[in-house]
C-alpha cells in the first residue's frame, strides 16, 4: 500500500444501519479464501458446486464481437440480448447474431450503470438527468426511482433487490430501495467512486475510484450497516487517492477541489468534513453587479467587480482583474492579450472568463516551493486554477527545482471504471482510456494485467449469463470506441 493509500483511509466514513431491515447474511460462510459459497448466482437452496478456481492463465485469450452500442454499461437478459443504451439514447437489446430489439426509445442521452433487478426490471442510471430509472423490459414502462443523484455512474444490485449507486461527484455510494426510492448511505467521502461489484456472497462491496486507481471494499455489519471503506488495492501506476485536507481543518479553510480549483472546508448536513465550492458572496453584500469589490484567496488580494454566478448570486471573483478585462469582449477559447503576450480565454475555477497566459505556467507551479523542502504543502498559483499541492522535484514535469504539484489524478492511469468480482474472489477492473484489464487477488493488494485491449474506451465488464452464447465463464467488455464487445476467456464464472 502506498503512502497515499494510507492517507486515504483517514477521510472515509463508515455508515451505520439504515431504516430497512438488515439484510440477511445469506451465503456468507466465512471462508478464508473469500470465495463464499456461490449461492447468490444460482439462487438454489441446495449446496452449489465449488467454484472452479483458479482462472485461466494470463494474458487470457480474447475475441471481438462487432456491432453493438458502445454504451457505458450493459446487462444480459434472459432471452440472450445484451441490453444497453445506444448512442441515440434508446434502450435496445442486441443478440450475438445481430438481431435486435428496441425496448425503450428515449431512455437517456447519457445512460450509465445498467443492471437487472431480481424481479426482472432493468435499472439504469440516467447520468444526464441525475436519475436512477426502472424499466419493465416487457412493456417498456419506466419510472424514476430516485432523482437528484450527482453523476450516478456505477450500479450494482443485490439478491434482495436493493440497488447500489455510486455518485462520482459527491463521493458517495447509496443503497436504494427501487420500490420506494428510499435510500441510505453505504459509504461517503470517497474520491470519484464509480464501478461497483459485490463478492459472490454479497457480504462485501467493491468500489472503484475513477482517477484514484483505487478499489475499496466495504462489508456488511451485523447491525445492517457497513464497515469503513478500506483500500483493497490500487492499479499499477495509479496516482492514488488524494488526502482529505478538511478532516482537521477549521470551516472556511481553503482546500483543493480536485480538478476544479479551490474551495472551502465545510461540514455538510450529513456531518462529513468536505471541501465545497465557495464563492465570496460576502464581499458583494449590498452591492450591484459591476460594482468594485475586493476578495482574498490563498494570501492574495484581488480588486475585482461583483459578478453574477451561475446560481444567480453576486460574488467577488478571485482572479487578477487584468485577466478578466482582457476577455471582456471575447468568447471562451478566443484570443486575448495582456501586455504584449497573447493567450486564450478560459473559464476560471469560479466560472469567470480569464486570459490564460502560458508564460505564467512555470512561475505558478514553482513560486511557492522556492523556500520550501520536498514534501512540504504548498500553493499552486495558477491564475485560473489555483490549487494546493506538495513540493516535489519539478524536473520530471519540465519545471526547474521543486514544483508544487497537486495530488489528484484525472488522467489516464487510475481511471478505473468497471469492477467485477468472480466466484473465486478475484476482482477485475477496467482502466478506461488505457484499455487495460487488471485483476486483484481475493486478498487484494497488487493487481496483475489480465489483458490489454485494443481500445481507448473500455467502460464496464460483465460475465455472461449462460444464455444466447453469452458464456458464464467469459468476461464481456464494452468497447465504446468501436461499438463492439470484447469477449475474454477468463475460465471462471462471475458471482
Amino acid at each position, binding site marked *: 500500500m502506498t503512502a497515499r493509500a494510507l492517507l486515504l483511509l483517514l477521510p472515509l466514513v463508515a455508515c451505520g444501519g439504515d431504516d430497512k431491515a438488515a439484510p440477511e447474511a445469506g451465503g456468507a460462510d466465512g471462508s478464508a479464501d473469500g470465495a463464499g459459497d456461490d449461492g447468490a448466482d444460482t439462487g438454489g437452496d441446495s449446496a452449489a458446486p465449488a467454484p472452479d478456481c483458479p482462472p485461466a492463465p494470463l494474458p487470457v485469450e480474447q475475441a471481438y464481437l462487432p456491432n453493438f452500442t458502445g454504451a457505458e454499461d450493459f446487462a444480459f437478459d434472459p432471452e440472450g440480448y445484451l441490453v444497453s443504451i445506444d448512442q441515440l439514447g434508446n434502450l435496445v437489446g442486441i443478440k450475438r447474431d445481430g438481431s435486435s430489439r428496441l425496448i425503450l426509445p428515449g431512455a437517456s442521452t447519457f445512460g450509465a450503470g445498467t443492471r437487472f433487478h431480481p424481479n426482472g426490471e432493468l435499472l439504469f442510471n440516467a447520468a444526464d438527468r441525475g436519475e436512477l430509472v426502472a424499466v419493465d423490459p416487457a412493456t417498456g414502462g*419506466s419510472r424514476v426511482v430516485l432523482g437528484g443523484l450527482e453523476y450516478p455512474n456505477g450500479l450494482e444490485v443485490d439478491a434482495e433487490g436493493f440497488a447500489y449507486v455510486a455518485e462520482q461527484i459527491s463521493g458517495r455510494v447509496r443503497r436504494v430501495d427501487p420500490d420506494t426510492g428510499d435510500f441510505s448511505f453505504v459509504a461517503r467521502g470517497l474520491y470519484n467512486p464509480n464501478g461497483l461489484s459485490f463478492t459472490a456472497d454479497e457480504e462485501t462491496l467493491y468500489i472503484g475510484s475513477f482517477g484514484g486507481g483505487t478499489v475499496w471494499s466495504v462489508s456488511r455489519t451485523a447491525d445492517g450497516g457497513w464497515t469503513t471503506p478500506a483500500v483493497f488495492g490500487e492499479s499499477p501506476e495509479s496516482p492514488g487517492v488524494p488526502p482529505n485536507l478538511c478532516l482537521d481543518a477549521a470551516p472556511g479553510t481553503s482546500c483543493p477541489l480536485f480538478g476544479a480549483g479551490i474551495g472551502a472546508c465545510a461540514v455538510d448536513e450529513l456531518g462529513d468534513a468536505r471541501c465545497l465550492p465557495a464563492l465570496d458572496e460576502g464581499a458583494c453584500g449590498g452591492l450591484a453587479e459591476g460594482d468594485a469589490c475586493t476578495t482574498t484567496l490563498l494570501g492574495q488580494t484581488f480588486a475585482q467587480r461583483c459578478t453574477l454566478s451561475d446560481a444567480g448570486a453576486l460574488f467577488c471573483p478571485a482572479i487578477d482583474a487584468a485577466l478578466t478585462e482582457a476577455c471582456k469582449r471575447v468568447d471562451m*477559447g478566443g484570443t486575448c492579450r495582456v501586455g504584449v503576450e497573447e493567450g486564450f480565454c478560459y473559464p476560471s475555477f469560479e466560472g469567470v472568463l480569464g486570459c490564460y497566459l502560458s508564460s505564467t505556467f512555470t512561475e505558478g507551479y514553482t513560486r511557492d516551493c522556492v523556500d520550501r523542502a520536498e514534501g512540504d504543502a504548498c500553493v499552486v498559483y*495558477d491564475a485560473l486554477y489555483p490549487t494546493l499541492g506538495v513540493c516535489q522535484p519539478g524536473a520530471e514535469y519540465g519545471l526547474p527545482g521543486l514544483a508544487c504539484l497537486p495530488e489528484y489524478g484525472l488522467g489516464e492511469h487510475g481511471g478505473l471504471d468497471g469492477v467485477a468480482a468472480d466466484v473465486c474472489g478475484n476482482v477485475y477492473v477496467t482502466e478506461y482510456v488505457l484499455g487495460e484489464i487488471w485483476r486483484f487477488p481475493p486478498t487484494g493488494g497488487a493487481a496483475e494485467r489480465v489483458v490489454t485491449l485494443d481500445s481507448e474506451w473500455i467502460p464496464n465488464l460483465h460475465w455472461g449469463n449462460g444464455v444466447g452464447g453469452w458464456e458464464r465463464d467469459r468476461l464481456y467488455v464494452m468497447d465504446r470506441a468501436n461499438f463492439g464487445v470484447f469477449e475474454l476467456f477468463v475460465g471462471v464464472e462471475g458471482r
Partner: protein
Amino acid sequence: MGQSGGGCGSGRRSAARAALLGLTVGCGGAGEAEPKDSAPAGDAGATADGGAGADSGWAAEGDPATVALHGACPLDRRWGGFVVDVGPRYSAVTGAVADGVVPVTVLRPGPHEGDCQMLLRENPSCDPPCAPDQACDFDGSCLPYPRNQDLGPVSIRGLSGPVSMDPVPPGTTYFDSAVPHPAVEGDALVQLDTAGGAYPAVRLHGVGPEPLVSDTLAWVVGEGDLPLRWAPPTGLGRSRVEARLMVDQHGLSPYTLVCSFEDDGEAAVPAGLLRSLLGAGVSGFPSGTLRRRTDDQAALPGGGCVDLSVSTTQLATVEVDGHTPCDSPDDCPPGQICNIPLETCQ
C-alpha cells in the same frame, strides 16, 4: 440568431438561456395548446383500436410545404415532447410530458459563433440530498419532482404505419418500439394529436426528413474548422441539419457543441468553438451525431411547452487531433510540458 431573450423566460438566467435557445428554436410562434375538435380535453380513455385519430386513415391533412413549424421548446420551458427518429438501424417514436422542468436538463449557454453554440450541463448539488419525490435545483434547494402527465391517447399520422399510443405506466411515457423502419418518408407531412388529458389537446406537425447521406462522418477535431458535407434535400427542404459534438468528462460538467445549419449540403463547425470544447477537457469519450430534423412546439397551460421533433440521425466517429491529454510529463512530446489543470500538453 432567431428570436432571443424577452418572453422566453423570466429573470437573468432565463433570459440568457432563452437567448441561447433562439439559436436553434426560437421561443415564439405557437399559441396555447389548441383544443382539438374531435377529442375533447379530459378524455383520456384509450380505445381498443388505438385511441385518438384512429378513425380516418393515417395520412395527415395539410400541405407539408407550408405547414407552420415553430421550432423546439426552449430548455427552461420544455416540459416534454415527442420524437420520431429514423436511425441507422431502426426507427423510434417516443414522448413524455411532465408538469415542470427537471433543473439538470437546462443547459447553460456558453460561447457561440455563427450557427453553433456551446452548452454546459451543470450538476446541481443539494445538501442534504433530496427525497425520492424531489429534484435538486441549481440553488441547492429541492423541488417537487416533475411528474409525467397523462395526455390521453396520442396519435401520429403520416408515418409509415399507424401509430397510436397510450401512456405506459408507471412513468406515463409514450412510445412505439415497433414502428416500421424507416418510420417516415421524405417530405411526408407528420401530424401528432393528443386527445387531451392533464392538458388540453395539442396538435403538432413535422415534415419527414429525406435520408441523410454524408461522406464526412469521421470527424477529426484539430486546429481548423470542422468541415461537414451532406447531400442536400431534393424536395421541400423544410429541415435543418444539426451537428452535435460532445466530450463526456466523466463526472465533470461536460460541454456539448450544438450547431443548427441550413440544410444546404455543407457547413463548418468553427475552429474557435472546437478549441473551446477541447479546452474544457477531453478526459472522456467523444461522440457526434448529424441529424436532419424539423421541430414544432405548442404552449401548455402554466407556462410549459411541448414539442415534436421529426428527424433522421447518423452517428459520427470523433477523433481529437493535435491535442495530447496528459497527467504527467511522460505523456507529452519533447519540448512540451503538461498543463496539469487543463490536462493538455502545451
